[in-house]
């Protein structure tokens, strides 16, 4: 039994790490969607962030610079999306999907020369005393800095959205862009900034994967995590705190099912892998009814094109 107990610490630590890329990307997308824009290009922005972050870290030898570059690359991809959908009024769903396809190809192209190059892992935090605590010490106080940064982003985003005037305006734009426009708010500028933030967060999620989680570049390294992050925003009904719970749940299920298998417990691994998507489908079905949509906090202008002259 004690052998299983000793596993709690490592499992907790692995869950926190697995939740981190989801947390970055989903929090970013949450802000984007709160402003009324639906960007389905998270997976693509994540991949470009991952490869650019890795490339810069290899060239400069600094994982911090790599991480910044990953965020910048994600924001660059998002800027492209912003120009197409906000200025040229392209369809958001189609453009987002195209952005993902573009990101998959672009990251593979950039990454050609970086496959198989090893880099040093991002150092882990070590707080004497706390990190040495039994069972939970390593999980809570021995993670990489990025894990804590993602965690800190949760209250920060919540505070911004619900306790600042700028956050209030952003939400107003997402609920009713025509009214916000009539009040004199710059709908397009606000949405563009939100889209850039979302891109930077997706880029960070990608850079976390390539610099920290598996310190390597491999084509398609995100393996669908961008899609899980998108699902997570819906699953969390557009609330930052619930995004955190969702990320822990989704990350936790991934790690738990690997351990369950290793211990020889007989639950089909496919079933566990499927759970996050199943939960998302359920939420999507529920919010397709208008009453439920309002109750569940979905931004009313989500995905709708805004044209100031209309």
């Amino acid at each position, binding site marked *: 039994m004690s*052998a299983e107990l000793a*596993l709690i610490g*490592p*499992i907790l630590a*692995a869950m926190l790490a*697995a939740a981190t890329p989801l947390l970055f990307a989903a929090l970013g997308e949450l802000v984007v969607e709160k402003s009324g824009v639906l960007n389905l290009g998270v997976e693509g922005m994540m991949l470009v962030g991952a490869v650019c972050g890795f490339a810069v870290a290899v060239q400069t030898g600094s994982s911090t610079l790599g991480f910044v570059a990953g965020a910048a690359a994600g924001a660059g991809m998002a800027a492209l999306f912003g120009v197409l959908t906000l200025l040229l009024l392209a369809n958001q769903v189609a453009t987002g999907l195209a952005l993902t396809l573009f990101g998959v190809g672009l990251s*593979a192209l950039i*990454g*050609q020369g970086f*496959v*198989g190059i*090893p880099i040093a*892992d991002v150092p882990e935090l070590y707080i004497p005393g706390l990190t040495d605590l039994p069972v939970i010490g390593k999980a809570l106080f021995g993670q990489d800095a990025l894990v804590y940064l993602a965690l800190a982003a949760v209250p920060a985003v919540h505070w911004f959205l619900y306790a600042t005037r700028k956050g209030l305006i952003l939400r107003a734009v997402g609920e009713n862009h025509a009214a916000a426009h009539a009040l004199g708010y710059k709908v397009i500028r606000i949405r563009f900034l939100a889209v850039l933030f979302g891109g930077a967060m997706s880029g960070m999620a990608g850079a976390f*994967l390539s610099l920290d*989680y*598996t*310190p*390597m570049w*491999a*084509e*398609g*390294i*995100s*393996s669908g*995590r961008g899609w899980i992050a998108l699902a997570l925003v819906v699953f969390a009904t557009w609330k930052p705190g619930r995004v955190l719970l969702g990320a822990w749940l989704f990350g936790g299920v*991934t*790690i738990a099912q*690997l*351990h369950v*298998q*290793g*211990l*020889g*417990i*007989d639950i*089909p*691994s*496919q079933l566990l*892998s499927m759970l996050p998507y199943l939960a998302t489908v359920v939420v999507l079905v529920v919010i397709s009814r208008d009453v439920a949509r309002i109750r569940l906090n979905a931004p009313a202008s989500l995905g709708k094109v805004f044209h100031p002259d209309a």
Partner: protein
Amino acid sequence: MGKALMGLATGAAMLALGVGAADAQEKMKVGFVYVGPISDHGYSYQHDQGRLAVEKELGDKVTTTFVENVPEGADAERVIEQLASSGHKLIFTTSFGFMNPTLKVAQRHPDVKFEHATGYKRSANVATYSARFYEARTVIGQIAGKMTKSNIIGYIGSFPIPEVVSGINAFTIAMREVNPKAEVRVVWVNSWYDPGKEAEAAKALIDQGADVISLHTDSPAAIQVAQERGLWVFGQSSDMTRFGPKAHLTAIVDDWREYYVNRVKAALDGSWKSQDTWGGFKDHMLFLAPYNPALPADVVAAAEKTRTDIMEGKRHSFQGPVKDQSGKVVIAEGKQATDEQILKMDWYVEGVQGKVPK
């Protein structure tokens, strides 16, 4: 000789069709369909090495095309169809899940020859080929049994198909022969290529006490994890030493070069027939990567003996008596598993923890 025959054959065909002599120079198009990126440094990479060998040796007679990252299933059918209808005369589809799509497309294109890797369904214009990967797993299983201190060996599996299950069993049998106390823990990631998940699986197994990791997935992510944690690991499909020089004990290396060159030659000279090829060490379809210098000399010597014994037919990976998990003898004393038994294997031998997912 091949060239002369080919010239004659095409010449006759061109005359019959009344096509000008300039077209007689046209090269045969050969297509390759890969499940992963060729940059995976594993399975798809090795198939592409085979394609490059064809280009190198027969480049004056053929041109090659490849499509990477093709998902198994409906998408694969479109890719294969596309190759077949754009004038490719020989198409290699290199993953198990391409089996049914390949057969479907082959039915519509009786004049195109197909080669499907690791499948079992054939038709007049579909041949199959695979390597006896389990032979190499016998060797690494033996090394694992000698190198483990915790007696827990982690095994990262892709999908519970017979090829992977027979690999786990061959590994375990050889491991238990040198170390009856050791056991294998299997974690399925339900993907051939997902670096993040493969790394997570490796970490989970190591956290559960495994000190040697073997994998049947295509990325080198687990090699890095083992390197970081200071444990042992075996590479898959390619020599993965550079991802973890200290941790990498050796690797099972697939080698398709000779096979691909021979089959393309056969297609060129008209001797191509639908057949099944299942080659092992002795057919040069399988190698072991250089042993880690940290391996003790006696372990290397024993591994080399096992390898040459298999090559010379003195040893079989499934030599009876082989017991399943319940202790029942499945392969009787003095008998060897038949090819059919290996190709349909869906049970674990004694020493593997857990059950085969259904």
